[in-house]
């Protein structure tokens, strides 16, 4: 009887351990429980190698073990970009000490006007840690295209000369370098902070 109890109990205990392990592995990957944004799974983020507003060449590989938030915008942008960057700055601030694990980069879709200096001054208005990225227009076009970002210059009579229509989606890359989230323009500060908090924790 004792022998059978040990065999049955041991088997069930083993099943319990496997179940618990499965729970801790599987459940964290059921992202809708925690993420507000659209989830991607198992997709390596295309590399980005451009000139940083910090005066250095910047590659995604530089942010190893950090969560990277990628946004495509430009400094003359009248509305969508400042709203988005402000939200990202507030969301990052909500993370407290974990904020250091999040790097926000804005790839310019207006490389003609957005020099590293212009980008540095612009990014610092939102958060001194934000990085602007610029480079050869052909490189920008290739990177934007593979990140699903459209952009197109639009002539206006404003002092700015021209505007640039562009996709407003924010992409989030996790610590392992996988493109993890697509955040829509409608996302709130709280929702973005929640998602980032989960990824850095």
């Amino acid at each position: 009887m004792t022998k059978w109890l040990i065999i049955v109990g041991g088997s069930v205990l083993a099943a319990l351990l496997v179940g618990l392990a499965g729970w801790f592995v599987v459940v964290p990957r059921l992202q809708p429980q925690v993420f507000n944004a659209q989830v991607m799974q198992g997709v390596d983020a295309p590399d980005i190698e451009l000139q940083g507003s910090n005066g250095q060449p910047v590659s995604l590989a530089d942010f190893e073990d950090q969560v990277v938030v990628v946004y495509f915008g430009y400094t003359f942008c009248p509305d969508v970009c400042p709203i988005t960057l402000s939200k990202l700055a507030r969301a990052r601030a909500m993370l407290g000490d974990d904020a250091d694990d999040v790097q926000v980069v804005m790839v310019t879709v207006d490389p003609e006007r957005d020099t590293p200096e212009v980008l540095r001054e612009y990014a610092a208005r939102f958060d001194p840690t934000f990085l602007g990225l610029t480079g050869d227009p052909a490189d920008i076009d290739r990177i934007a295209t593979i990140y699903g970002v459209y952009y197109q210059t639009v002539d206006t009579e404003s002092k700015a000369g021209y505007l640039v229509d562009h996709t407003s989606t924010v992409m989030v890359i996790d610590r392992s370098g996988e493109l993890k989230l697509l955040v829509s323009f409608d996302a709130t500060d709280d929702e973005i902070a929640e998602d980032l908090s989960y990824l850095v924790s």
Partner: protein
Amino acid sequence: MAEDASGRTTRGRWILRLAIPGALVVIGVMAFAIFEPIQVLPRIRLGPGFSLTDQAGAPFTSEDVRGDIVLYSFGYDDCGDRCAGMESTVTEVRDRLGEVDLGDVDIRFVTISLDPASEGPDELTRQALRVSADGEQWRYVSGDPDHVENVIRAGFRTWYEPRDDGSVAFDPALILVDGWGVIRGEYRYQTVASDADKIIRHLDVLGEELRNATGAATVAYEAAHFFLCYP
């Protein structure tokens, strides 16, 4: 001695009480993985962003189809049988859309020129007329050759190479993209056999996910993605 036996029995009961839920979780997970009660299409990668021009000469961008399901194809005017095969597949899918329920989501068809340096609205219109593409649900598009190259090669990862005789060598491909701009299906190396049946089946699966993956059911659909429950 009696107390020891009693103690062992009590411990055994507690082990069973704790283990049963764990065993049920394991069985449930295994059953989900094996029987795949829900199927989904994989989220392969991001589809490209683009800014092109359609057969009417109007601007057409990836933002114009945000929220829609799009079946992309590639071709050029003098392409011959290989393009005819793809056109016939897309035409069949278009004509059989009544078989799938996509809810409120629209489906669009976009054929991107493999010869953008030579093809403007006139050439695109000629191709569109061949398949009765209406210019709204099905557009033929072209644009700056460098940008088109980025879109097709880097974005859709589809090989093509212009030849000296004016023809274009390419791998025939049809690519299904969802409303978030995420590639959900790739149908490559098609020659004669039609992929229309497969695409229709996949549209049905995608439609089911779009209709049902809300609220708590989202978790079940994410589990289906996790366990690679693909058709």
